[in-house]
C-alpha cells in the first residue's frame, strides 16, 4: 500500500509530528552549536543516557516518563558540576560515570519490574509519529523557555566560550552561566527524546552545527544554517518514515550525515 505524501499532511498525527519535530530541531540545533563550540558534545550524550534512567523510573511509578527524565537529568547536571568544581573527576570522566550510572539505573528497574519493553523501546529510539497533544505542549513550552534564554544571553555565552578569563573580567558571571547552560542542555535532551530517542539525540545536537561550521560563515549565519540543516533533516526523516514505516530517528541521522558529507565536499572544493 502506498500513501500519498500530500494526503499525509491532512492527518492530525502527522501535523503534530511535524510541529514537534521542527520545534525540537530548532532547539537542538541552537543548543548543539554552543555545545560544539564549547567542545562539550559528549555532555549531550552523557545526559541523554542518564535520562534513560529517569524514563524507567517514570514508567515504573506511572507518571509521564519525560517528567522523571527531566528531574534525573537536572540532578545529573548538578552532580557533574559538583564533581568538576571539587575536582573529583575531569569533565569527560565525570560524564562517563554519570552516563553509566543513569543507564544502569534504567537497566536494573527494567529487569526488576519487567513488562514495559514496547514503551521503553519508543523512548530509546523515539516515536515522533505517535506524539500526543500533551507531549507536544510540554515540548513546546520547554523549547520556548530554552530559546528565550539563549536569545537573550547568546553574546554572553559566546564571549564565555571564546575566552572565559576575559569574560570574567568583563563581569559575566561565567559560573552561573555554565550551570544554566548545562541545565538548558538537559531540558533540550529531554524534549528531544520523543523525536529521536535517548540513544541518537546526540546526532541532532552535534551534526547540524558541524555542517554549518564547514561553511565558513559569520556567527549569525552559522546559527541560521545550523537551524536549517536541523529542520530539513528532521522533516525529511518524518516524511520518509511515515511513508516507509522505517524508524524516524534512523532516517534523520542518515540525512544529517548526508548533509555533512555534502558540506565536507563543498569545503574541499572551496579550498
Amino acid at each position, binding site marked *: 500500500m502506498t500513501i500519498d505524501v500530500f494526503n499525509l499532511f491532512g492527518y492530525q498525527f502527522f501535523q503534530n509530528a511535524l510541529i514537534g519535530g521542527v520545534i525540537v530541531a530548532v532547539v537542538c540545533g541552537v543548543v548543539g552549536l554552543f555545545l560544539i563550540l564549547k567542545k562539550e558534545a559528549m555532555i549531550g550524550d552523557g545526559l541523554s543516557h542518564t535520562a534513560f534512567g529517569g524514563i524507567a523510573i517514570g514508567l515504573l511509578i506511572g507518571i509521564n516518563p519525560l517528567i522523571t527524565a527531566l528531574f534525573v537529568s537536572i540532578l545529573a547536571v548538578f552532580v557533574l558540576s559538583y564533581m568538576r568544581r571539587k575536582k573529583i573527576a575531569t569533565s569527560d570522566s565525570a560524564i562517563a560515570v554519570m552516563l553509566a550510572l543513569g543507564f544502569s539505573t534504567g537497566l536494573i528497574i527494567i529487569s526488576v519490574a519487567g513488562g514495559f519493553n514496547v514503551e521503553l523501546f519508543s523512548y530509546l529510539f523515539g516515536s515522533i509519529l505517535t506524539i500526543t497533544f500533551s507531549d507536544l505542549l510540554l515540548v513546546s513550552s520547554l523549547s520556548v523557555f530554552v530559546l528565550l534564554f539563549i536569545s537573550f544571553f547568546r*553574546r*554572553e555565552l559566546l564571549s564565555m566560550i*571564546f*575566552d572565559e578569563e*576575559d569574560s570574567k573580567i568583563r*563581569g559575566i558571571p561565567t559560573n552561573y552561566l555554565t550551570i544554566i547552560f548545562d541545565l538548558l542542555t538537559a531540558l533540550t535532551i529531554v524534549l528531544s527524546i520523543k523525536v529521536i530517542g535517548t540513544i541518537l539525540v546526540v546526532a541532532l545536537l552535534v551534526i547540524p552545527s558541524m555542517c554549518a*561550521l564547514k561553511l565558513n560563515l559569520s556567527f549569525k549565519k552559522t546559527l541560521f544554517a545550523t537551524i536549517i540543516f536541523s529542520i530539513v533533516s528532521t522533516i525529511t526523516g518524518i516524511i520518509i518514515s511515515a511513508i516507509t514505516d522505517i524508524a524516524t530517528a534512523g532516517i534523520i541521522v542518515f540525512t544529517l550525515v548526508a548533509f555533512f558529507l555534502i558540506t565536507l565536499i563543498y569545503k574541499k572544493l572551496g579550498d
Partner: protein
Amino acid sequence: MVMQQQNIPVLEVKNLGVYRNNVAVIENATFTINKGDYVGIVGPNGGGKTTLLRVILNFLPYVQGSIQLFGVDVAKFLSWQKIAYISQQATNFEDQFPLTVRELVSLGCIRQGRLGRNFSFDDWKLVDENIEFMGLSDVANRRIGQLSGGQKQRMFVAKALTHKPELILLDEPIVGVDSDAQEKFYKKLSDLNIKCQTTILIVTHDLASVFCRMSKILCVNKNVELAGITQDLDTAKLLKRAYGEHFHFVFHRHGCEGEFVHDY
C-alpha cells in the same frame, strides 16, 4: 591651573613578593605607573613578566606587599571595566571559530549591569570606529581565523577599546608576528596612548621599540626595576641587570633602530 596628569597613579605596587611552590617568582617589587604612561615590560623568559601581570589582575595570589589599582587595593577592586587585558594566548584561538572580526570586537560591548541586552546603535558605532582606528576596516567581515598574526593582535585591542579602558595590559605572544606588523602595532598603541591618555603596559621582546616609542621600561627578572626612558638612561647597565652580564644591546636613538649582540 592645569593638573599634571603624569602624577595620577594608576597602578602602585609596593614590596610585592610572589611565590609559587615556595620559589620566589617576584621579589620585593616596588614601582608606580602613572596615568598616560606607555610602559614596556621586558626581561628574560621565565623572569616573571606574565606572572606579574596576572597578579596585578588578581588571577594569582601574592604573599607580601600590596597592589593598588586606581587607588584601591586589588582584592577590593571592582571597577574592572577600566582595565583591558590581552593575554599571551589570546591570538591562539581556533581558526574555525565562527566569528567575524566585527562580531568579535562587538563582544567587547558586553558590560556588567547590562547583561542580556541588545547592542544599541551607539555600541555598533563604537565597534566600527575602533575597527577603523586599528586599521581593520577592510577585513571587518572576514572570519577571525583568516587574519594574520598582526591583524589578530590589533583586533583584540579593538575589542578592548570598546569598553574604553583606562589601563591596557598586553602580554605579547613570542612568535607569529613579523617585525613590520609589530612596528605598526606599536605605532597604533602610541597613537592611542597620546590620543586618549590610555595607560599601556606591554610585555614585549622588542627592545628597540621600547626605547623608540615608550615612556618607561619595566625590567622583570625576579627583581623588578622601573626606569624612565630619557636621554641619559644607561640602557646597557639597566639591561645587563635584567638579562645578565652576557647581554649586550646596541641602540641608536637617532635612527631609532636597535640590534642585539649575544656574546656567550
